[in-house]
């Protein structure tokens, strides 16, 4: 979904999110967080942002009913994006299902800032072929893409972390960017820790405000003194080793 907008939203960086209000009377009361999927440009100038979402509940169903010309009430960009450095030459992007939403934006950003010199290796996993989104976008950027599905309908029938772990042991990357289901991130966290790698993961959480007021969106921190981190203001992108997931 493309949203035409102005102001700071156009300066969003990969990993940041917006809070969307889906008007349905007092039902669907709370705003929903969505990762920014990309910046829409026209003649080289930023004109809007893109969202990628999967209909999983009442909120995303309502979002699917919006049509061209409708207006959407959003707050953002919010949160902290991925750390991007020119010193990272060997990068892995690991995605599970709809977790690809911020990662496509990230891949495009890396392409732009490095002038196409850095080509991250992309690992896309899904339950089935229908869950594999943005494969073409990554290939169009000239990136090597490895695909797996749970049911074998596309790519190898295994978890995406299986071929990824093999790749990591052969040639360890300098940075890994990951987004996907918690089980995938747990697995990645273990491997990252074992091999002493650097990994940033974007974490999804229910949240009411997105600005650090409700304190509803916590994840456990590895540091026991800190106890919890807030996805909205401390994340949603975290060094995976800082979390206890």
């Amino acid at each position: 979904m493309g949203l035409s907008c102005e102001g700071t939203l156009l300066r969003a960086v990969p990993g940041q999110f917006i809070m969307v209000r889906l008007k349905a009377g007092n039902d669907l009361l709370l705003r929903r967080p969505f990762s920014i999927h990309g910046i829409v440009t026209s003649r080289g100038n930023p004109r809007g942002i893109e969202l990628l979402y999967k209909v999983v509940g009442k909120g995303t169903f309502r979002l699917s009913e919006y049509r061209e010309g409708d207006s959407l009430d959003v707050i953002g960009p919010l949160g902290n994006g991925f750390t991007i450095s020119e010193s990272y030459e060997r990068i892995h992007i690991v995605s599970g299902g709809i977790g690809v939403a911020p990662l496509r934006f990230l891949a495009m950003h890396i392409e732009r800032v490095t002038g196409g010199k850095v080509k991250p290796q992309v690992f896309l996993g899904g339950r089935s072929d229908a869950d594999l989104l943005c494969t073409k976008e990554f290939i169009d950027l000239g990136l090597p893409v490895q695909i797996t599905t749970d049911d074998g309908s596309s790519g190898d029938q295994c978890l995406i972390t299986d071929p990824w772990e093999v790749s990591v042991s052969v040639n360890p990357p300098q940075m890994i960017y990951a987004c996907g289901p918690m089980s995938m991130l747990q697995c990645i966290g273990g491997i990252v820790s074992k091999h002493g790698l650097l990994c940033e993961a974007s974490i999804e959480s229910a949240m009411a405000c997105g600005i650090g007021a409700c304190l509803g969106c916590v994840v456990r921190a590895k540091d026991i003194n800190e106890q919890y981190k807030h996805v909205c203001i401390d994340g949603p992108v975290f060094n995976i080793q800082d979390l206890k997931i």
Partner: protein
Amino acid sequence: MANHPKTAVSIGPADLKNCVMTASGTFGYAGEFAGFMDLNRLGGIIVKGLSLKPSGGNPPPRIVETACGMLNAIGLENVGLDAFIEKKLPFLKTLSTPVFVNIYGTTIAEYAELAQRLEEIPEIAGLEVNISCPNVKKGGIAFGADPATAHDVVTAVRRKTTKSLMVKLSPNVTDITHIACSVVDAGADALSLINTITGMAIDVETRRPILANITGGLSGPAIKPVALRMVWQVAQKVDIPIVGVGGIMGTGDALEFLIAGASAVQIGTANFVNPKTAVEVVDGIEAWMKANEIENIHEIIGSIRV
């Protein structure tokens, strides 16, 4: 016909420029909302529930949306008194809007110590004593469900503070007016009601409660009729100001509370949905007064016709 209707109200010794406050736990430490409004236009700001020591709060999931509302079980996560004074207070001191600190303890002595420490800070206008949080095992509701215990807590705080002393009441009691009268007798300057209503939600597929805490506090438009009824009931029993809170989403809701007998209102969950709600209600009440040729807010307060 007055061009500028008078909307100022007093909550004990604290003078508010208007009757719109922001509810504890829904407005952070105010700075979070500075980008959305001029905070000095608010009548009062009540900051997140504060304890002597920092508290991490409950494990996630902590919130879930329900029909016309939300359940939360944050568990009073907060930075603790020392960090509040060091890190949060400097910004709050820059505001002209009166700041109330919501305090909670696990013992009566802790409530008293918090009151004593905060008494030394002139920029704090008042305290809101939380005897009604449903999400912490010790303290909270344990003090708010029994008139005698509530009396003891408020008496102990009253001894330590000359500031405006507001007590936040729980709806999770058989008769809220009993607690209200007891707290008034102990020296409260004002009552705020209601805190959230205890509730729960279950995931049908896993048959597990959605909140890690199992139960949580229901807030939002779903609870407004209950809050309004309780404000009306308590207003008939006490002579101190009542601050109405519970599901206020806009000006109309706020006016209902004033008519029922509240001297001021708190905006809570609506801050999450529309961060500008509180100032919009400030403007909305003024506009409504002008349209109805009402010069002073006191003409509205308790004006219910039954």
